[in-house]
């Protein structure tokens, strides 16, 4: 890719500032001297429980049910993670085991 150093710096400044802005906006709108409205406190309590589900779907957004392998590797791996985690309650084991299983499945089973 042919970019000048200035162009690259400008590009990364834009992406960095844009990212920081999305993280900072709520804090800019509600600085410490302003009491947090009751509704925002309610959202703060409830949103973490909704957003993790959204993140899981976000991770799986590119699966295609109509095309082989029909998201079967993803489904198997997630079921195994759930069972493993309910059974052993060991975060590392669940994550490591699930990811390893998924890699084996898509690299050598559902090729």
């Amino acid at each position, binding site marked *: 890719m042919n970019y000048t150093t200035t162009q690259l710096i400008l*590009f990364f400044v834009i992406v960095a500032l844009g990212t920081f802005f999305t993280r900072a906006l709520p804090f800019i709108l509600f600085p410490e001297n302003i009491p947090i409205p009751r509704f925002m406190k309610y959202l703060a*309590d409830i*949103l973490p429980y909704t957003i993790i589900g*959204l*993140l899981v779907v976000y991770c799986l957004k590119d699966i295609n049910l109509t095309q082989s392998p029909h998201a079967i590797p993803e489904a198997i791996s997630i079921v195994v993670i759930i069972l493993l985690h309910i059974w052993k309650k060991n975060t590392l084991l669940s994550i490591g085991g699930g*990811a390893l299983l998924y890699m084996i499945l898509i690299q050598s089973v559902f090729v």
Partner: protein
Amino acid sequence: MNNKTAALKAAFPHTIPVMTGYLVLGAAYGILMDSKGFSLLWIIIASVFVYAGSMQFVSVALLAAGFDPLGALLMTLAVNARHLFYGISMLHQYRGTGRMKPYLIFSLTDESFSILCSAKVPEGVKEKWFYLFVSLLDHIYWIIGSILGGILGSLININTKGIDFVLTALFVVILINQWQSTKNHLPVIIGIASAILCRLLFGASDFIIPSMVCILLCVTILKKPMERGKVR
């Protein structure tokens, strides 16, 4: 000093799953940038100052498409809009964190947020130091991962296909923990259902913002019944 050591000790175990994910994904980013001909310096600059996993991957694609500053800005805002929810959730917890607050806000990634919103800070440990160390450790893992990727990129030859599933697994595990920690499962169901519905309606690249709107609508409409069955 003792205060900080205690906070670091309390923070570290919580960050281990993210360490696995970030070293690997960071390395994947480094490898990708290296393959596009970017030097290690640019890889480090991006990982230190942008510090947003999915956005950094998207930015490689943006660069490949040609120089378009306005397009890059709009894309950044769209891809990262979900961060608004993290800020809202951490408004209260991050009050009184003083000088470290700008850094805590800057480093509020998906993964750091997922730890910080659910981890219980042990008694006797100062919260703000716990927040700082979780954030800082995660950031360091990401930087180290991307540097390793940039250096080793062309040298190693293992099949890493599917390795990004580490993060899917991390979020699934957090979801199970959340599910088991409360009797009110409605918020979790709202999140998943809104996301799936909007993914089907709007497609893979445009569903995040509609999902956020849908979630906000649902939790606003259901505020009364939700508060009766207190989540926390």
